[in-house]
Every structure is written in structure tokens, then in C-alpha cells.
């Protein structure tokens, strides 16, 4: 099976966000593989181990994203591709990201593409379904179980807490939801091996794309932090009094019940 995983480098979930000059500050921040993409990588490795084939991880990003690709290789992916747009593009929205990824994937004879259901930074969840549409293949989002038998695929999908059982077929793009699996940590031998695995770097030129083809559709007007919450009130006194007071406050002061 020819398996591809779309991987995004994102801020560590522990990081606080700092804005300066209208931009999110990246200096000194830790970066990780988008947590949902870790599920996607893990699933890809498991499918390959069961069915044979090759797992290629692909990211659009700058030089720095190599680190996350090496981590994916250390987990067990076979090859990595960095599509480096740093020199060509000042901006990249979901529309353009999907075009770039689809352009790379279109002649690869893919059987299965895995993505995260959402990136925890940009947070739109658009890239997976957009790529599938551009490639003309079917997709299923927020999956929590995947079974492949020949070209038949059985999937369990999370829909707002309920589960949908779905049948479809390859080629297919799926997006990973929490609960799909337990992503492995890279092992020491895995990390050693990863250093020697192929990591290709491409630019827009290599994909026969011009800057015009991927001009963004969205304009960012402003970025800001939510207002800081004022410190709240910790109630005091006898516990039963506190509970009475709380219900009273919620009813009369906050008016939420």
C-alpha cells in the first residue's frame, strides 16, 4: 500500500501565545507534530505493518519542520518530504496549502492518505477534505477506527460524541480523531535509523506551481489575545453555606441558571 501522511509542525500545547508587532512570536517556543497528526502517523505505520507498503510523511513548511519529519521517521515512517515554501511565498492559507499538497500527491498513485482532523494552531480542519476533493478521492473525517480488507474499508467515525459506522473503499483520505490509537514514542534505534532515511526537499518550482496558482483567498486583519479574566471569587465559610451562596450568585448575579 502506498500511504501518505500529512503532517504539520505546530506550537507545543504547553506554550502561551505572545503577540508582538501583530504577529505570533515563535522565538524560544517549543514545536511539536500536531497531536492529531501523531495519530495519523501511528495508524499509517500500523496499516503498513499489517498490509505491507510504504509510509511517506509530507509537510509544507520551512527548514525548521525537518525536525518534526525526522520524528515521524523515527516513529517508523519510511520517507519524508518537505515542501519548502519559505522563499516563494509570504502567505499560505488553507486553499493554497491544499493545492500544493494535492499537486504533490496527484501522480503518486496513493492508496491511503491520513491527516489530522484539525491543526491545533490554525484550527480550521479544512486541509484534509480539500486535498481529497482536489485529488477526486473520497474522504472520511474524525475517524476513531479503521479496518482495511482489500480495497474495502470499514470506519468508525466520531460525530459529536456519537459513532457512525461507515463502509467505503480505497483510495481514500481519512482524518484522525483522538481515540484512534496510542501513538508510539520514537525508540532509540528508531531515532538512529531515522537519520539515514530519505528526506526530500521540494519547492514550488518542482511542483510546476506558480505563485499565482496559490494566491491566498483570505486576509488576516488582526491577531489579538482574549481579554484576561479577572481573578474570581473563592467562596468562604461553611461548605453548605458556600453551596447556597454559589447557587444564589449563579441565579441572581451571573443570571446563568
Amino acid at each position, binding site marked *: 500500500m502506498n500511504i501518505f501522511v500529512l503532517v504539520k509542525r505546530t506550537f507545543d500545547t504547553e506554550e502561551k501565545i505572545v503577540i508582538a508587532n501583530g504577529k505570533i512570536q515563535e522565538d524560544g517556543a517549543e514545536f511539536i507534530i500536531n497531536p492529531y497528526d501523531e495519530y495519523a502517523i501511528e495508524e499509517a505505520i500500523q496499516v503498513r505493518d499489517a498490509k505491507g507498503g510504504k509510509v511517506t510523511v509530507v509537510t509544507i513548511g520551512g527548514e525548521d519542520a525537518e525536525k518534526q519529519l525526522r520524528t515521524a521517521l523515527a516513529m517508523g515512517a519510511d520517507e519524508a518530504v518537505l515542501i519548502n515554501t519559505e522563499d516563494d511565498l509570504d502567505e499560505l492559507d*488553507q486553499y493554497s496549502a491544499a493545492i500544493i499538497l494535492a499537486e504533490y500527491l496527484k501522480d503518486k498513485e496513493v492508496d491511503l492518505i491520513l491527516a489530522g482532523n484539525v491543526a491545533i*494552531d490554525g484550527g480550521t480542519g479544512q486541509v484534509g477534505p480539500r486535498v481529497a476533493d482536489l485529488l477526486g478521492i473520497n474522504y472520511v473525517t474524525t475517524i476513531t477506527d479503521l479496518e482495511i480488507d482489500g480495497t474495502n474499508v470499514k470506519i468508525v467515525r466520531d460525530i459529536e460524541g*456519537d*459513532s457512525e459506522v461507515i*463502509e467505503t473503499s480505497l483510495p481514500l483520505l481519512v482524518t484522525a480523531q483522538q*481515540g484512534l490509537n496510542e501513538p508510539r514514542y520514537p525508540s532509540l534505534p528508531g531515532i538512529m535509523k531515522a537519520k539515514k532515511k530519505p528526506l526530500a526537499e521540494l519547492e514550488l518550482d518542482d511542483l510546476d506551481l506558480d505563485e499565482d496558482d496559490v494566491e491566498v483567498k483570505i486576509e488576516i486583519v488582526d*491577531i*489579538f489575545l482574549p481579554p484576561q479574566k479577572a481573578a474570581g471569587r473563592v467562596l468562604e465559610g461553611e461548605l453548605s453555606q458556600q453551596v447556597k451562596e454559589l447557587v444564589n450568585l449563579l441565579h441572581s448575579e451571573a443570571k446563568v441558571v
Partner: protein
Amino acid sequence: MANKVLVLGEVRDGVLRNVSFEAVAAAKQIADGGEVVGVLLGDSVTQLANELITYGADRVVTVEHPHLKAYTSDGYSQAFLAVYEQEKPEGVVFGHTSLGKDLSPKLASKLKSGLISDVTEIEGSGEDAVFVRPIYSGKAFEKVKIKDGVIFVTIRPNNIKPLDKNASLTGDVASISVDVQNLRTIIKDVVRKATTGVDLSEAKVVVAGGRGVKSSEGFEPLKELANLLGGAVGASRGACDADYCDYSLQIGQTGKVVTPDLYIAAGISGAIQHLAGMSNSKVIVAINKDPEANIFKVADYGIVGDLFEVIPMLIEEFKALKVNS
């Protein structure tokens, strides 16, 4: 300039979801005096058209077909695009729900358009409308607009106020027929797991438990409280990892993001990843036996104490309040 804006009315268990009425209100703002057209897709949905109109849609277009009984991205995209081609709108609004998240990127791709997902607020109107949306799971926000082409947005439930229902409003309801075909996905079954029947992302009240709840039975009093308040139960990852509840209840950076009127956190320490999913709730109550717990930093009201004592007392007090009012 006035715009025509399409709104997808989302139907679940035979009724329109609240987020669809919120979407109508959003569409009105984008339309800026132009027409708001409701779109209903399903096997039998015409009877719901009027309700969309009473919430402000000027008219409704329906597509009914047996293949639209259950949502599939293939079926719904064919039907929606048929309406789109007929109406040629300047704007489209969906709810940022499971369905909206799944369908909107496919349509945006087909329309070669931008898409602004998960909008929590709209500033200005018409062409000048600017859309506010969370990034970094609510740790920051951005204001964005569409540069050119159709103004396509999905709105987060519970953030944009619906218009008041006005039963005297009337409007045209028309249907168009679409030959929905070639569905590549078959839905075999839907397994209901949500505990109270109130959707977590749309709930006005969320009662969430963490590792402090200690077991799945420990969640029972939380469920009782949620039921009493017409709300939903949520959880921290700590509780989900410990198998006290299903991952679908998880709130936070890698779970659901919720903005209810009231969020009650019981036995949750308040890790940064959890706060990302709930700190924009209107009122937050924390119940934790550790006075130093981080959750108190975002709580409007805090009780330092054992949740197994506090929750039952809360249930009694809310019951008393209900009787008295």
C-alpha cells in the same frame, strides 16, 4: 451593497439545530439588507422550512431525495451545489458542527474559494464584514476577511445570538430536484453514546469532571446535575485517559472547545490544554479540594472542597431553586 446569502439548515433527529438559527442571524449581517435564503437537504425536510423563516430567513429552497436521508459529503455536496448554481449567492453560512466541518471544505474546494471556519463573532456587515475566530484553540484570536469571491463561513455554536422568533413571518418555500448519485460512503449504523442527549458544543451548561472524579461511577452525580440544568457532561483528558468516560467528552486543546453560559469544573486541575477548551465560557465554577489548583485562576466562583460532598449539595440547592421559581 446588499448580498444574497445561503444558510444551510442542519437537521438532527427531525428538528432544526439551534446553530442554524444562529447561522441565519450571521447571514443577515453578511447580507446587509440583502436576501437570506435557507437551504434544507434531506429525505423529508419541507415541513421545517417555516421555522427557518420565523427565525429570519426570507425564503427556503429544499432538496429532497432518499439519498439525502443520512449525511454524506458526496450527497450533500451535489445537492448544495445545485442550489448554489441556481441562486448564485455572495455569501454562504454553515454551522461549525460535525456536518459543517466535514462538508464546507469540500464545497470551498469545488468553488475554488476561501473558507473562514469556526467564527465566533462578526464585526461590521456586508462586504466590510470582518470575522473573528479562535486560533491556537482559543489562546488567541484572529480577525479575517475573504479577499475575493464568495464569503463562505462556518460559525461556532453558542456564540452568535439568533434573532427572536417571529411566528408571523412568511416566505416562499421552493424545492428543486437533484439526481443525487454515486455516493462513495455508506452509513451502516449510528451508535448513540452522548450521555444526556444535549450536544456538548451547543450546551448552555456543561458539568465537567476530571481525574478527581476517580471512576466512571463518580460521573453519575455530575450527570444528574447536568440533566437537572439541561446541560451536558464533559471531561478532562485526565478523566478520559483513566477510562472514566469516552474521549468524545474530552474538552480542551485536543478535544472539544466549548463556550457555554455556565461551565462547572469538578476535580479538574486546570492544565493549559484544558483551559484552551473552556476558558471562554461565560461563567466558570471550579470545585477542587486543592486551593492552589490552576483552575481557580480562570474561575469566576470557586469552592475549595470535596466534589463528592459539593455536587450532591448543589443538586439539592438547584432543585430547591427550581421549586421556588
